[in-house]
């Protein structure tokens, strides 16, 4: 199979998109590197405080008129954006592979998920309707108007460069707010293309802004008095100790979706081939760099024959995964995003070995298709006999590492899951409805999978999270996003 054509050629400079204009960055310029080829594919500016202030000012200025724009008119712009995204579907997908490294099927999946949120937000004329009660007391009526709040900051991570800002942005602008998006500076290209399409769709200047950068931009958003709220996806230490705390101090609304350590619980009555296919995607999809990735595999019961058969099949399937550049259609697992992240995963593999877990499949020296530099590549790694309380069993690794543990029964498996500080996306694989119900009822996890390895809710539903995986009240996506981006203005009326 041929390698698909790369949409990004030359080395473009990624500018900021402020007030409907592409603005030359003022701060330091850094490289954007394709992690598979190790080549620089773009340059991006690290915005200064003045640049973030200018973007917020533009968003603030645009807000009153955008708020007055009828929801139906706002919806029509979103419909146009949806059309443009569909037209650019393949280009957007390939950009994600180029900047992030994920396989083309994964990028297309990400594009689809992103568009899905725009589709849902297109329904804003009904989604944003309030409600009304006549005669709450004699002659007195009362109603609720969901009103927009102003400017929202959207802080995206590196692992889903296109999709994650779309968990928030379409709902924010659909409800009449304006946004400043900060993509990860490692992967700014798909957000640059998205902003071009948003501009083409017809959002007025200042409604949709993008400022690239790092900590300065984040701090600028957190401290800015004109930002009403922040959505953030990233690590737990940053989400909990910086974003959530600072938003509390400054009175901002906040959604902080954070780290995870997801347990995949396998019952002996599961459909083995289907379960293994699902687990391959769960543990090794996106090279393990997702907050819904499987991390710990818990095999329930003391059936030694089942365990051996299951693990033999699992290890064989994982060992056969084709590793390489995601634009090669045969590739099933791409590189990690950068060398630092690879080193971090390697550190955990070393810890696992030192902790005494059995290294069943060692991914440290991967066989890479077509000989791309091994700077960021790792193969699937499987540890058996891992302890849920050990470092590799407890901490988020964020790479293609599966730690296998055993539980005597389902109750013990659920306890293992719930003892972990994270609660993002645990799942069970079983053919038994009773086991499935027991699991979903007792598990402390925001998203729960039943025979689903990646428990990503569709855009109609909130992207949930619990414990150390989520800080806030309402979630991104769907109705909860509408509530997050609006204040319930309650009017009580009497006429004399």
């Amino acid at each position, binding site marked *: 199979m041929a390698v698909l054509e790369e949409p990004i050629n030359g080395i473009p400079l990624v500018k900021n998109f402020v007030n409907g204009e592409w603005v030359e960055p003022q701060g330091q310029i850094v490289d954007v590197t394709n992690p598979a080829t190790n080549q620089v594919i773009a340059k991006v500016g690290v915005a200064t405080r003045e640049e973030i202030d200018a973007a917020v000012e533009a968003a603030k200025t645009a807000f009153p008129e955008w708020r007055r724009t009828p929801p139906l008119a706002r919806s029509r712009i979103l419909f146009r954006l949806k059309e443009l995204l569909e037209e650019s579907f393949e280009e957007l997908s390939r950009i994600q592979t180029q900047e992030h490294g994920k396989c083309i099927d994964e990028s297309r999946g990400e594009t689809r998920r992103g568009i899905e949120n725009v589709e849902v937000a297109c329904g804003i004329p009904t989604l944003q309707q309030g409600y009304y009660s006549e005669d709450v007391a004699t002659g007195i009526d009362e109603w609720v108007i969901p009103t927009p709040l102003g400017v929202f900051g959207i802080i995206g991570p590196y692992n889903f460069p296109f999709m994650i800002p779309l968990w928030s942005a379409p709902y924010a602008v659909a409800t009449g707010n304006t946004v400043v998006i900060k993509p990860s500076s490692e992967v700014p290209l798909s957000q640059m293309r998205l902003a071009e399409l948003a501009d083409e769709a017809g959002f007025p200047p200042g409604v949709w802004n993008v400022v690239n950068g790092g900590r300065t931009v984040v701090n600028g958003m957190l401290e800015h008095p004109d930002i009403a709220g922040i959505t953030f996806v990233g690590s737990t230490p940053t989400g909990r100790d910086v974003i959530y705390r600072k938003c509390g101090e400054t009175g901002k609304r906040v959604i902080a979706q954070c780290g995870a350590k997801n347990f995949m619980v396998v019952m002996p009555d599961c459909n083995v081939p289907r379960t293994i296919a699902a687990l391959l*995607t769960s543990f090794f999809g996106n090279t393990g760099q997702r907050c819904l990735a499987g991390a710990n595999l818990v095999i329930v019961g003391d059936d030694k024959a089942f365990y051996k058969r299951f693990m033999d099949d699992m290890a064989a399937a994982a060992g056969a995964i*084709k590793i390489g550049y995601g634009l090669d259609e*045969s590739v099933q697992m791409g590189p990690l995003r950068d060398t630092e992240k690879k080193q971090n995963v390697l550190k955990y593999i070393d810890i696992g070995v030192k902790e005494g877990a059995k290294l069943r499949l060692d991914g440290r020296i991967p066989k890479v298709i077509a000989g791309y530099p091994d700077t960021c590549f790792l193969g699937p790694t499987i540890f058996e006999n891992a302890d849920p309380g050990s470092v590799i069993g407890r901490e988020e690794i964020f790479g293609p590492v599966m730690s296998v543990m055993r539980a005597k029964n389902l109750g013990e498996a659920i306890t293992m899951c719930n003892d972990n500080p994270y609660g993002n996306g645990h799942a069970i694989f079983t053919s038994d409805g009773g086991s499935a119900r027991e699991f979903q009822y007792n598990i402390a996890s925001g998203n729960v999978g039943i025979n689903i390895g990646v428990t990503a809710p569709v855009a109609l539903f909130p992207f949930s999270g619990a414990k150390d995986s989520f800080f806030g009240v309402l979630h991104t996506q769907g109705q909860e996003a509408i509530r997050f981006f609006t204040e319930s203005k309650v009017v009580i009326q009497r006429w004399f």
Partner: protein
Amino acid sequence: MRLNTASEAISFLRELETKAATFYESMGKAHSSEEALFSDFAKESKKNIANIERTYFGVITDALEGCFAFDIDRSKYEIHDMAATARYADDLAAALEMEERIRRFYVDAAAQSKGLMADVPRVMERIARARGERQERLRSLMDALKKART
């Protein structure tokens, strides 16, 4: 060579259908008595590509097992670039063989990806059924040709 990812399988289908369309276009020119039919077959093959791609792009998500949906030996279904000859019977036989390979690919790919690729297998099955009808049509043309010769 084995096909494992959805992207590979879809690209392979595109290749098969493109080759089929090209062959039928050339058959239409070479055997003008059935030009309309072969032209319809060519158009249908192009439509199949659009149909499969639309379905795949419409359902693929990061929660589906897109990278692990197939395990198919590509060599069992490959077809060569084909062009019509002056020999109508030979061309019909070649078309039938080609159709059978493509139909089998659709059937086998659909069976493997059921439950893994959402709506894609259903579209594949529908196209496979339509291909069966196409094969019937080609067989009836062969029969008519044989009768005319006897």
